[in-house]
């Protein structure tokens, strides 16, 4: 509530340009979905799920949080059991590691694009919209000037980001080894789809 009502607590994060989307989800004991398996009756605590999509390594990310908004972090997590505060950083990282859940599947619609690359794309898109409007009303000579000004503004945003750095060589090898299973599964799905009337 302190973060939602007083966004200045998060100012240290904004402008880091590391985070794409992040969320906090507080789940009370009666809010865990019950689809027939029964309500959760053996829970005394609320739980907070924190998901973040960010650039850089895990260590860089936690370091940035701890350096950027140490008090903000404490405001978020002060009511969590055994939360060790965000400074010093080692117990904080140990706490996060202990409470972290390994992800099983991750999808990024813009792989290779860091947060600033996404912002660059938004700038280019906005510039194109402006040029479209100008093109409809300006003469050729006027439009050339408008175009040159727009190009100058966004010239730094036109590069291709390329591949993002792979997390590790093990990750790359895992992707290579997993290809067989992924391909088999997709072939199975394709044959089901092709057989369907």
């Amino acid at each position, binding site marked *: 509530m302190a*973060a*939602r*009502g*007083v*966004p200045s607590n*998060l100012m240290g*994060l*904004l402008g*880091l340009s590391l985070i*794409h*989307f*992040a*969320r906090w*989800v*507080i*789940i009370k004991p009666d809010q*865990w*979905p019950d*689809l*027939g*398996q*029964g309500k*959760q*009756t*053996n*829970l*005394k605590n609320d739980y907070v*799920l924190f998901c973040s*999509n960010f650039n850089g390594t895990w260590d860089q990310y936690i370091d940035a949080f701890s350096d950027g908004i140490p008090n903000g972090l404490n405001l978020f997590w002060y009511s969590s*059991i*055994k939360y060790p505060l965000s400074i010093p950083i080692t117990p904080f990282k140990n706490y996060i590691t202990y*409470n972290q*859940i390994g*992800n*099983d*599947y*991750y*999808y*990024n*619609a813009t*792989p*290779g694009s860091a*947060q600033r690359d*996404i912002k660059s794309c*938004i*700038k280019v898109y906005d510039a194109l919209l402006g040029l479209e409007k100008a093109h409809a009303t300006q003469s050729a000579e006027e439009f050339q000037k408008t175009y040159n000004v727009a190009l100058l503004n966004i010239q730094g945003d036109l590069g291709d980001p390329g591949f*993002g750095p*792979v997390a590790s060589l093990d*990750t790359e090898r895992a*992707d*290579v080894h*997993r*290809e067989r*299973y*992924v*391909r088999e*599964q*997709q072939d199975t*799905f394709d044959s*089901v789809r092709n057989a369907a009337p």
Partner: protein
Amino acid sequence: MADLDSGHIFLTTFAPIKDSSESNANHTSFEQNVRIALAKLPTAMQSPATQNTGINSPFSRNKRNHLARMFVLNDAVYNGRIGQNALVATVKGVNTVVPQHVDQLNCAYLVFAADIDAITRDGEPLPTNLSKAEQKDVRAAYARELWNTMELEIQDVYSNCVGFEDVDTADDFAEYLDKCHVETTMPFHDYYMELPKFHLLATKPLLLAVLIPALVAMVALVMRVLGWIDVPMLGWNTLWTFIIAAALTVLIAFMAVKYVI
């Protein structure tokens, strides 16, 4: 609802996974089946290794998701015994050998979290505000889009989840995912080109609104305890002043938390 921020829905769903004591022909737990199905899903073509496969993620078949993740949550994380002051424990007669309660979920959950455009049809502009009903429509439209573009992959994963036996159509899946929906408490993104004027909580006025009647109540109580029947100059009965001011304090605090904060 805090699912919506800057034209995007921060969709969070928890689908309970079947208990493995149920009859299961291939002798693998439903949790493990979910993990295997997720491991076999292709990721985006994000590296030379994955680009060489020529197979893109099924999520790329729709244009509404920016990011998506799925993981199995086995159980609540237990951080260990909560210690307490030794003197307090002694006075209370707490036997520290006896274990405290440990939270346990009655099933594992498949958590699916996605950051999606808050639209019901491709090409629509991103909205600033949506009512609860409109947000539900957006979630349903996204679920239908997923079903229409990756039905087999969804079935492979979700067939291990409780209540999925009755899901046969896109509408069924939308209804199913709605039952699994949990509201995001606080969304965050950092795509601002310029920082907007955020809506700020009026903390000082709120604090004053609660503290002033609280102070009046305290002063009236102290006066009453010291034997003053009426408030000097105002002539109010000190007992009634205390009761009314205390009631106002509680009411204003309650309303501030319920409607403002």
